């Protein structure tokens, strides 16, 4: 179990250039989260590499306090495109 603001701070501090971050507690138990992260640092990186960057930022939090983290990562450009496809 971990407070959402701790996760947000960790991501913002350790993933450079985060321009958008949305965190959702999926169960209310503070251990199953969903995070949408947008950063220019994801540019040119595969999805696995993007997610690994976020996991590295969270470090030991992923070894217990956070049981599951559904991740969606985007470059600013992909995030902008995504908005259009939903309209």
């Amino acid at each position: 179990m971990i407070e959402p603001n701790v996760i947000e701070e960790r991501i913002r501090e350790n993933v450079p250039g985060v321009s958008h971050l949305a965190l959702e507690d999926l169960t209310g138990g503070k251990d199953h989260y969903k995070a949408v992260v947008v950063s220019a640092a994801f540019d040119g990186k595969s999805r696995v590499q993007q997610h690994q960057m976020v996991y590295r930022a969270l470090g030991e939090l992923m070894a217990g306090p956070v049981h599951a983290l559904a991740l969606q990562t985007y470059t600013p450009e992909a995030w902008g495109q995504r908005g259009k496809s939903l309209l």
Partner: protein
Amino acid sequence: MDEAVKARIQGIIDEHPIVLFMKGTRNFPQCGFSATVVEVMKRLDADFHGVNVLEDPEIREGIKEFANWPTIPQLYVKGEFVGGCDIVRDMFTAGELTPIVNGALDGTVDK
């Protein structure tokens, strides 16, 4: 992670074209995320070698360090880490998984 565990993991992913490190087995997945990847593999009609990490604590921890990926399930195709539940599902939805899996099963995809 000691070299023996690392060698065991490498051996498994080299030996089988598709490997899924999961919680439970293909017929009795013990976790929703693992069950999702099993379902994707069924829809692709792709046979895979399942490793039940619940019965192998050494692999359960070692695989996280091996892939620098902190969660289970983990899917490997032709010895390469493809992703966890989210990525496998997203790739399946986008149709990106089919060529990778088919290539691995009929041996046309180079490592």
